């Protein structure tokens, strides 16, 4: 992948909140993620076919811990489990063998994959607004240290891929602005099949509902109350 550049495939996510308990800072949602095949650059590994991933998400904040554990109340965990269903079950390619001049047929089976992962994060904005205002600089009060873990386990149609779980552990930090957030994380492979060295990922998010509060950000349904604890994760 040395020198590779280009966009990955476009991904869209339709998400519906199934359950919310504000008192215990717990939320569970279901969604369908679609990776639109052919919308990205093949040089960075983007596939030519769609991938559909129904996913369950959950988030839990620990603001309901007793005040004797105040230091732990800004912690939150998020998690997700999804099942990726590719739009193709296999690809077939033909090449000419340079030694024999004969045509070789290669068949690659595209496995269905269990995607699972979690994050652990510590919200300095929550510490300041709900636990204790330590009078720290504004920059520090906007930080969220985070560790993400993301794994992929092939579960069917695995003749080509095998069944070894791959994934990465990503420690990093998020800075939350008024209408955006930026994050930088290290990407550490969990085994040889996941990669051979450490990488870096940067993310820039825009809050469309705050940038366009009267159009894109207008609430579709009433009673959409934000508790002030953001949860970040994939």
């Amino acid at each position: 992948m040395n020198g590779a550049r280009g966009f990955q495939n476009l991904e869209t996510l339709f998400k519906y909140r199934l359950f919310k308990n504000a008192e215990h800072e717990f939320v569970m949602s279901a969604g369908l993620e679609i990776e639109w095949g052919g919308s990205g650059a093949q040089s960075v590994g983007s596939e030519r076919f769609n991938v559909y991933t129904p996913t369950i998400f959950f988030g839990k904040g620990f603001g309901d811990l007793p005040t004797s554990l105040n230091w732990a109340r800004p912690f939150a965990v998020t998690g997700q489990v999804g099942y990726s269903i590719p739009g193709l079950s296999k690809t077939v390619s033909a090449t000419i063998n340079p030694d024999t001049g004969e045509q070789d047929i290669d068949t690659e089976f595209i496995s269905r994959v269990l995607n699972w992962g979690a994050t652990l994060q510590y919200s300095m904005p929550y510490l300041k607004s709900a636990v204790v205002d330590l009078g720290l600089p504004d920059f520090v009060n906007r930080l969220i240290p985070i560790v993400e873990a993301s794994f992929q386990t092939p579960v069917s149609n695995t003749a080509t891929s095998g069944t070894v779980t791959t994934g990465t552990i990503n420690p990093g930090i998020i800075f939350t602005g008024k209408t955006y957030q930026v994050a930088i994380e290290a990407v550490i492979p969990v085994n040889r099949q996941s990669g051979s060295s450490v990488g870096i990922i940067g993310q820039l998010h825009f809050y469309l509902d705050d940038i366009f509060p009267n159009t894109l950000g207008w609430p579709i349904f009433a009673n959409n109350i934000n508790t002030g604890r953001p949860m970040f994760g994939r």
Partner: protein
Amino acid sequence: MRIIVTTIALILATAGCAFAHAHLDRASPAVGSTVTPAPNEVVLWFTNQLEAAFSSIEVRDEKGASVQAGKASLNRGNRTQLRVPLKALSPGTYKVMWRVLSVDTHQTQGDFTFRVGP
């Protein structure tokens, strides 16, 4: 090759990760603080302007009894500032629960405690 992945992801997020709604910026008494003497009001500053009719503060003592001396009111000269008068407080821990509607129509809520020292 030291770096296997270098990615800049540009993500358009919608509600759920919102920060520029009216969130609590600071408070008097400060969040988690111990104060002496007892304050006669709680003042909250938010990160966005508020709608007065749909913004409120409740303050309760350790037994859950309300200790407000009146309704919360918005500062007309600074619509990010909401205040509520208090009855005479004795030493103890008090919980402040706020629920506000920002001018961009998004609701937020939260709570914190402060302590009145002997």
